[in-house]
């Protein structure tokens, strides 16, 4: 199967997964108690006012009619408007995607940059001080909830280092420096547990690779130990790590939600929780669509990456 064909197949499959998710969500959120009209009118709204607003919002239509209306608009790229603010859903999503993705990406970068070298060092220096030190730190990483790390970071770093803000997000177009500073602590909070997981994986995977015959072959060729490790070992050791790294993206995204709240950053997580709390149906649907899109996309990227670093695999799996 060629790359293009494979991608096409994966995309079609993904579209169905997303459609399914979003359909479930569409009916699920409407079946839970809570009336957006009441929330808009401040809770103690008068019954007549409520009725009028519900009619205006089209909430009195039968569910399937609402569903197909929404779907039809979606096909034209129209995500609808937020019930609560009247703003286009797509705009809100674009707006919140920035901080969340920034944090998640930087968090992953931090995790990778730390986990991969330490994982390698730890496996090479097995049972030595470097190994004990880094496995201990990794253990701490996987034993703390991300948001708690965030809280501790605010306490320790944020309050003492003026240059690092403890709250809010600065978009990248206001300068790379301020942007980086604004997402540094949240990214560490997200990246640390993730890094711990990755480091442990990297270590065990590398240990396995170190025992492989081809590593002995490489040494028998007279290569330096660094070359043996990084030229011959690294890519092989990364193969299982990449697969699992993708799966753990879910963990990262879960962590980002709570971390966004700790740092007062309005990202996808806060938007999702807020929109559900407010029964802002179009916004919930839009957010879930985006989240599942990110998941599915990440899955495809991981698969491609996996195929790339593992020449034994053809597109679509199988050897």
């Amino acid at each position, binding site marked *: 199967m060629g790359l293009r064909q494979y991608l096409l197949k994966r995309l079609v499959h993904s579209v169905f997964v997303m459609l399914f998710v979003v359909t479930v969500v569409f009916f699920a959120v409407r079946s839970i108690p*809570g009336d957006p009209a009441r929330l808009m009118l401040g809770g103690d709204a008068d019954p007549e006012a409520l009725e009028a607003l519900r009619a205006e919002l089209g909430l009195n239509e039968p569910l399937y009619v609402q569903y197909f209306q929404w779907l039809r608009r979606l096909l034209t790229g129209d995500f609808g408007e937020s019930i609560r603010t009247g703003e286009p859903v797509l705009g809100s999503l674009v707006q919140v995607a920035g901080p969340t993705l920034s944090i998640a990406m930087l968090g992953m970068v931090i995790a990778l940059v730390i986990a991969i070298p330490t994982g390698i060092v730890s496996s090479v220096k097995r049972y030595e001080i470097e190994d004990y030190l880094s496995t201990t730190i990794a253990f701490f990483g996987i034993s703390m909830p991300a948001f708690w790390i965030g809280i501790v970071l605010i306490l320790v770093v944020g309050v003492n280092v003026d240059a690092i803000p403890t709250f809010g997000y600065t978009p990248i177009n206001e300068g790379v420096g301020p942007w980086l500073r604004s997402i540094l602590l949240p990214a560490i909070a997200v990246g640390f547990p993730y890094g711990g997981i990755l480091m442990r994986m990297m270590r065990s995977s590398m240990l396995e690779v170190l025992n492989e015959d081809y590593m002995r072959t490489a040494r028998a060729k007279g290569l330096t130990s660094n070359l043996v490790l990084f030229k011959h070992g690294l890519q092989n050791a990364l193969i299982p790590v990449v697969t699992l790294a993708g799966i753990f993206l879910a963990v990262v995204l879960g962590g980002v939600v709570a971390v966004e709240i700790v740092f007062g950053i309005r990202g996808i997580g806060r938007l999702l929780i807020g929109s559900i709390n407010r029964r802002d149906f179009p916004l919930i649907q839009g957010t879930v669509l985006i989240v599942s899109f990110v998941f599915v996309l990440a899955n495809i990227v991981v698969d491609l990456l996996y195929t790339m670093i593992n020449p034994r695999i053809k597109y679509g799996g199988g050897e």
Partner: protein
Amino acid sequence: MDDIQRSDLEGPKIDRRTTVKLLGAAGIGGTAGCLGGGDGSGGDGGDGESGDDGESGDDGESGGGASGSRISAGWLTDEIEFLDPHMVDLGIQIEIHSNLFNGLLKLNEDIEIVGDAAADWSLPDDTTYEFELHEGMTFHNGDTLDAEAVKWSLERLAGMDTSPHAGKVSNVDSIEADGLDLTINLTEPYAPFVSFMLRGPGRAGTIVHESAADDPDEYARMPIGSGPFELTERTAGESLTLDAYDDYWETDADGNSLPYLDGIDIELIPEPSTMWSALQGGEIDYANLLTGEFAQQAEGTGSLTVQTASAGEWSGIAPLCSNPDDNPEMVRWISGLGEEPTEMWNGEDIPTADPRVREALAIAIDREEIVERAAFGYGQPAHTLYNPAIGWLYNELGEGEPDPGFYYDPERAEELLDEAGYTGEPRLEATVLALTEDERELTVVQEQLSEIGVEIEIDIQQQSSYWDNTYRYEQLLCAYGGASDVDPWMSDFKQFGYPNEETTEGAWQRSLWFDEEYSDLLAEANTTPNLEDRAEVYQDINEMFVENVPFIPTMFPLNPKALVSELGGVGTQAGLSNFHRASLDE
């Protein structure tokens, strides 16, 4: 109580003495009695109580003069849905639109009702209000603000069926506009009317520009007002940018034009702890609300000022007083859910239908302890319904110790439960429906009630489900409260009145306590313009209230606001955040 004459209610200013009577400046102004330290709160006096200390002159301004600069302010919410004053009912939004709009009247920083758009006003008789407007007022788009504009605004409200405030102008008979002269005729004397015309808590009298009719959604998002600041930009769920309106008509005593600040960048911060870290980290200069635990911490720092004021807020627990299925018609109307009332209580015992049980619960609660443990002292015990912001009534009923009222008496509570036949172990079990913000208070209540053998489970729900479920009446108890209530009408008419679709009385009944006699008394009070007479009616109302316990009041929260010490002149009366005269010391 001194009689308040009709002339006392006339412009250009209702003096402090009268306003105190009217609105309970004690609460509004923030000298809040039981609060830690009688001298207000802030560790450093300074402009801690800008209202009370009276800064200077009768409009109380900070000495800064015209020092242009911007400040950044944190708002404790995740979203500002509407800024159309006719739609707004939440304090957090009122606080913002008080900076964007003018009302006919306003509360100044010395807690006096003064003219806002109205330079002066008079009451030729009990049902006629004549206002004389300032000259040269314009909306942010340059349109003139004159009597015609005010008339349009009031008529728009009267004609709206989705506004929660339409009822406030329902007895306006006619409005006449002539240049700067505005005359409002009421169908009958209506006591709360003056307070309805206030900018801020009055809501109804806030002047809306006619573009609101063209595109209501857009207006609710980016309203055009006439206040010292205009909303120039907003990002949903994130921030609002308020810039000084250059042609704002108002000046300070020295003739400098207002406002001093160039603008305010409002950040929406939904988490109290985030607000606190933003304040500590210097990312914001002002926090519109700090929860008690952080206010306490803020007072410990040298660099922050805490100002507190009653925002006319009250909280408590509504007990289910009758089986919803006994009055299906009324319950269906109240709930607005389009559902038949629940039948789950048919044939079931509803313990709270027994007034003795309700009283037992009401007196098993130690309100002083709630204030201390749950609110860190930022509140006042609520022995009855009427909050300190309704000064004339609060004071008349006995200030902090109303008579009659609910006072902590666990022995008596157990006797009452014995009498009512609840002697088991536990005596009673109940679930209380609540919102996140009620959690601390109910945690204390839960422990207090368990002392008399009543076990309650706290069911914290998200706002959306909470609002629906309160009207499903499936729980015996429901945490409930109100805010920005500067007139008793705001606290009792819709909440405890006898349901009436026409007048919207009783539309918010949580307790399903239906008493026509009580309703008659409320009607009498509302049409009694003379405050002394009205207060007397309220004596009777209060007695009925305490006797029947349709509601178990717990606390009148005070809302601590925090300012960096360089910031002064913020008007926090009645829980507002008025930046008209705010300035930064360089």
